[in-house]
């Protein structure tokens, strides 16, 4: 079998904050074309894992390769969408200018000057991809939470990435936006690898191909294996599972899709 090298390869990684272990002996390989969701309890290390992949944090031990390179180099091929809550919601900036930030660093100089010639077309195509073409002149601070999230996805797309990394894209958005987001992600996955952090396991198991469980350790599961016992292992402890399938088709539910 002629398997392509993985686009993310983490071997024997340890990471701790102030001698407090967050991630231990992490081994993870992500193949091209994956649509994976990173889940786990709060404080389990999900965001830490993302920041390690992006090279914003350095591991205590172990190796991270992104597209066969160090995270600092490989991250140029990653489109990253942070949670929008940490941004200043009063900041005066247009939607188009936020998306254009994805093209930063593509200029020859980098330090000075405007965007490269095709930046505007790339930014508009990215806005079109998330269904916000009509909003390019609007102010970022006038948008709803769901729209802001989509603008930040467009900004990530505007970096022309091979891997899309989304931190909690389903936080604070209404069910209809969530449905739109899901369609967008499935469409994008045809041309790029996607990893997202999510709390909503129900949302996740419908769309994604595999689930990456992060709770000090990291385990990857194909979605078909998700069941109650597994969830108990991930979140560790007793809680009630509520069955909430998003859609029923004419044959009824064939998959048990639990959520927490």
């Amino acid at each position: 079998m002629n398997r392509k090298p993985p686009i993310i390869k983490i071997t024997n990684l340890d990471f701790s904050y102030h001698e407090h272990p967050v991630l231990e002996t992490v081994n993870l390989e992500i193949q091209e074309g994956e649509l994976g969701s990173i889940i786990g309890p709060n404080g389990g290390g999900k965001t830490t894992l993302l920041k390690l992949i992006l090279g914003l944090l350095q591991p205590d031990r172990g190796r991270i390769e992104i597209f066969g390179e160090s995270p600092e180099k490989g991250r140029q091929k990653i489109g990253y969408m942070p949670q929008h809550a940490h941004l200043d919601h009063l900041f005066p900036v247009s939607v188009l200018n936020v998306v254009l930030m994805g093209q930063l660093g593509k200029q020859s100089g980098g330090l000075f000057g405007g965007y490269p010639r095709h930046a505007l077309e790339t930014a508009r195509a990215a806005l079109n991809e998330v269904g916000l073409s009509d909003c390019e002149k609007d102010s970022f601070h006038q948008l709803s939470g769901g729209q802001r999230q989509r603008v930040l996805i467009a900004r990530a797309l505007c970096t022309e990435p091979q891997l899309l990394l989304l931190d909690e894209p389903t936080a604070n958005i209404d069910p209809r936006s969530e449905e739109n987001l899901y369609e967008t992600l499935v469409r994008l996955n045809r041309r790029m690898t996607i990893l997202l952090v999510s709390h909503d396991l129900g949302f996740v198991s419908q769309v994604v191909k595999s689930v990456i469980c992060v709770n000090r350790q990291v385990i990857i599961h194909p979605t078909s294996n998700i069941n109650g016992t597994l969830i108990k292992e991930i979140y560790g402890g007793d809680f009630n599972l509520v069955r909430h399938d998003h859609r029923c088709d004419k044959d009824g539910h064939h998959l048990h899709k639990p959520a927490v």
Partner: protein
Amino acid sequence: MDFFHALADPDNTFLRLALAVGLLSSIAFGIIGTYVVTRRISYLAGAVSHCVLGGIGGALWLKAIFNIEWLDPVYGALLAALIAAFIVGRFGHNTGQREETMIGATWAIGMALGIIFIDLTPGYFDITSYLFGDILLVSSQDLKLIIALDLIIILFVTSCYHQLLAVCFDEEFARLRGLNVELFYQLLLALTAVTVVLLIRVVGIVMVVAMLTLPAAAASLYANRLSGMMLLAIFLSAISIVSGLGLSYNANLSSGPVIILFAGAFYLLMAGWKKIKQ
């Protein structure tokens, strides 16, 4: 209308000079103020401005003790402001230190050093004009320096507009895109420091931060773009300075505080009007 008659009087060169300095300093106040407000570093700018007194005191002391003729206090002020900007930029930000403690310490130590140096300097020296500003004392040398400052600021901001926008809006994303975030941050702080030093003439050490924040904060209530916020902040700063200068001249009051009160009143009016409209 005394102020306008006085302006037209050929003998009152100092008043026309003050007006020119005031109007030109609005450009620096509006543009740098916009970054200070959106990047939320007004407390940092406060520390830098108070450290300026340390530099002024140090320069006066050196000049008197070692008879260094050319050593104008403004050189000491510039050096102290740049050092303070470097310290608070390097350690007062995302380093896991308690940033506001760091900033507060720099603020107080800088000011205390200045007063001790002035105590040690032989002869009497009045620091009131440095603390509270006196725009009527500006020289044509000050005017040239402020024109140079405006040109540098305009050149920097127009050539790096998008980069600065990204660094202020989302520093982490800018870093991921390969921008040297620390360099831009330090450059911005250094420019803030130089702005503070040159504009202390207008409103003084104690109030210069108010002129960096009030017009920009008022502008931010109505602006939808960073560039629009800058233009509106420049305009608000200019009318505060012209009104303040006029009223202080007519009523024989200190110019710095009157300018600040105008800027504060514009801010409150604009914030109140926005509340009413909602």
